[in-house]
């Protein structure tokens, strides 16, 4: 039975293309699937927007549904003026969604099961929040750490908690996505491995349909988790962006 973590190994397809500082940059299977995800999204959106019909066809309908879905998510969580961030949230949502779903295909590599990828996405969000908040509100941006209506003697504690809470945001954003994808794929692999192990086990072979059925059920669950995690990522991104737009009140 193959190791359940073998699927997360990074493989280098090329030698070092160029050097970034001291570290060589190579084209890996992770990079390949990121390119694939972007390619799928681009192809889909190109197919969806090409007709520009008043009465949408199938692809255009799908594209409009996707757009409306993300737009309403942003409007609900970040408010109407949060729609300036729609391109960012839309890109993040589609990238995470397609990367998650591509990872479910057999022999595929799951980009989002590596914490460095999800952490990079989360840091992008947090630095956008800080950058936009400071640019727009200046020092007033620090108001996000000072909730209104808190008695004075409690304020130092609350501010300390709010600061730690702010730092915990990229952690929770990245760890949640990474842990769900990693755990899901490992569980899937282990249960699929049971089938092979039982079949090879002689007498116990009659038990092998049990883990097989479980693997099928887990696959369905994983599809749900893949979509939900992308959605949660988008919702939380818009919630944090709302703070950049309206720090404290």
């Amino acid at each position, binding site marked *: 039975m193959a190791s359940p973590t073998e699927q997360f190994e990074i493989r280098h397809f090329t030698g070092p293309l160029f050097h970034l500082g001291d570290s060589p940059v190579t084209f890996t299977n992770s990079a390949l699937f990121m390119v694939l995800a972007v390619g799928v999204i681009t192809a889909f959106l190109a197919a969806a927007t090409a007709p520009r019909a008043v009465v949408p066809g199938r692809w255009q309908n799908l594209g409009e549904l996707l757009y409306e879905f993300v737009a309403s998510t942003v409007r*609900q969580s970040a*408010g*109407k003026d949060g729609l300036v961030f729609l391109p960012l949230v839309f890109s993040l949502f589609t990238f995470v969604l397609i990367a998650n779903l591509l990872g479910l295909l057999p022999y595929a590599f799951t980009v989002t099961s590596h914490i460095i990828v999800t952490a990079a996405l989360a840091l992008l969000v947090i630095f956008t929040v800080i950058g936009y908040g400071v640019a727009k509100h200046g020092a007033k941006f620090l*108001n*996000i750490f000072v*909730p*209104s*209506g808190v008695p004075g003697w409690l304020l130092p*504690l609350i501010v*300390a*908690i709010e600061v*730690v*809470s702010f*730092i*915990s*945001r990229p*952690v*929770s954003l990245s*760890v*949640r996505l990474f*842990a*769900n994808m990693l755990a899901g794929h490992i569980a899937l692999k282990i249960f699929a491995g049971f089938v092979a192990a039982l079949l090879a086990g002689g007498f116990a072979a009659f038990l092998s349909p049990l883990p097989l059925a479980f693997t099928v059920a887990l696959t369905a669950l994983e599809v*749900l*988790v893949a979509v*939900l*995690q992308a*959605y*949660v990522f988008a*919702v*939380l991104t818009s*919630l944090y962006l*709302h*703070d950049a737009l*309206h*720090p*404290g*009140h």
Partner: protein
Amino acid sequence: MSGNGEDGRQPEDRDLAKRLDDLGRRLSAKEREALAARKAQEPRPGGDATAMSNALRLSGEFIAGVVAGAGIGWAIDTYLGLSPWGLIVFLLLGFLTGVWNVLRAAGYLKTPRDHGSGGR
């Protein structure tokens, strides 16, 4: 004559029963309407987010608080040489933050954010 009187009362009874029935039906219809209206107003602040996405979110919030607190404490210990006080204080603070995060994510806290959306 007595038969006549009974005949006179029976339609009255029937009328009363009919009116009672009618009232009962109208009341239950009103009740159903009110119930439906209350249900329609109920949707949680998350909007169309399913319960599962909420559950996935809550579990992460708490862990992230503790991890972030421990990370800050460890960094303070390492770079300011205050060991072990940074870790002790900030791990506890991280625990508080975790609880705070969960309460906020579940919508039990009035935060600046909520004031903001309320004012819109």
